[in-house]
């Protein structure tokens, strides 16, 4: 049987991808940010997943003004890096897991989560930057990836509670797949940041630290946080954090913190990163 072996969260700032692609990770500005992932690279080499179920938001690369699904699942055999305006990132093509993706799609829709099934899609920095942070610059990605884009750009995104419950249904869906697979669920985006208007540059360390504390120990309470609180306290783009609740819902009631990291700034953004495992 397939099973969820761990949860990972990380911010997915595009400048991080550019720093990796341009060989700037050891420069004084970036070195402290990448230092927080050294443990994670060793950990994932020792705890290699067969599949990563990667929750992220499309930054209007695959979707756009014509079409904005709230929850979508990538069921294709592969996904090319998107051209976001400066050419595609020089990273490997993402190899999907169509059988598991189709199984999860059917299971989640039958659990009343109305997904959009996507069979052709390019993936942007929201998906490829977390892969780069965790795996570095390999010739090919070392595992399969199921992309799961969530709309957090067109307001309102799904509520935290909806995301948390979707994570719980996802855990059931994965556990009912017959093949013996180790699956990690990653929730990406955040933490506090605002990329627009005269309030651009907002960072809220207290909110971010409290968010991580609550995500670990009191996810159901955190899931009740209204959208307004995210936008007001964590910035207009901080609302991406609802996606972390999908990861947390896919884990059990009690978890162990394997790794926790927080750094300001990564360009405009507070960088947050967690690795969590179920407690037996």
């Amino acid at each position, binding site marked *: 049987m397939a099973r969820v072996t761990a949860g990972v969260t990380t911010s997915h700032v595009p400048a991080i991808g550019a720093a990796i692609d341009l060989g700037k990770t050891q420069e004084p500005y970036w070195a402290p940010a990448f230092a927080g992932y050294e443990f994670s690279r060793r950990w994932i080499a020792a705890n290699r997943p067969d599949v990563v179920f990667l929750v992220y938001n499309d930054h209007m690369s695959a979707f756009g*003004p014509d079409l904005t699904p709230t929850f979508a699942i990538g069921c294709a055999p592969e996904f090319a890096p998107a051209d976001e*305006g400066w050419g595609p990132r020089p990273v490997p093509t993402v190899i999907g897991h169509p059988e598991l993706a189709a199984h999860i799609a059917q299971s989640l829709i039958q659990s009343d989560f109305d997904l959009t099934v996507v069979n052709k899609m390019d993936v942007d920095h929201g998906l490829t930057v977390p892969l780069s942070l965790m795996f570095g610059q390999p010739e090919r990605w070392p595992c399969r990836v199921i992309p799961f884009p969530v709309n957090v*750009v067109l307001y309102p995104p799904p509520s935290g509670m909806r995301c948390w419950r979707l994570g719980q249904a996802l855990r059931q869906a994965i556990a009912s797949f017959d093949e013996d697979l180790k699956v990690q669920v990653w929730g990406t985006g955040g933490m506090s940041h605002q*990329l*627009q208007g005269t*309030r651009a540059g907002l960072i809220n360390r207290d909110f971010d630290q409290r968010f991580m504390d609550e995500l670990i120990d009191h996810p159901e309470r955190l899931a009740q946080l209204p959208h307004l609180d995210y936008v007001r*306290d964590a910035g207009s783009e901080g609302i991406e954090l609802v996606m972390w609740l999908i990861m947390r819902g896919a884990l059990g009631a009690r978890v162990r913190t394997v790794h926790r990291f927080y750094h*300001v*700034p990564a360009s405009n953004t507070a960088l947050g990163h967690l690795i969590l495992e179920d407690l037996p």
Partner: protein
Amino acid sequence: MALDKPYLGIPGTTVFDAEQARRGYPLNSFCMSLMKADNRARFKANERAYLDEWPMSEEQKQAVLARDYNRMIASGGNIYFLAKIFSTDGLSFQYAAATMTGMSQEQYAQMMLSGGRAPEAKP
């Protein structure tokens, strides 16, 4: 009955809701076209002529020509669409964000290095 929109009161912030998305549709569609290298080249060669191919308002076109991101957002743009414009210009999210605050890019970068804009600070 009108929808409750409590987020309209957050200072220095425009939430990209369905109303904004409706107004911004032509502007954001133009932005999406810049994901193709051929279109970027045509836009750079003659910005005004390229903009005139889109059913955008004159205000939206002027805002693009002036690279005034606050004006673009006010007329329905969203930063993830507008990113295609500053990426075409070879500029970063941090550059674009700085221009919206009225700070120089150096001042803005320094603010971020110092921990960012405090949430209670008035924008």
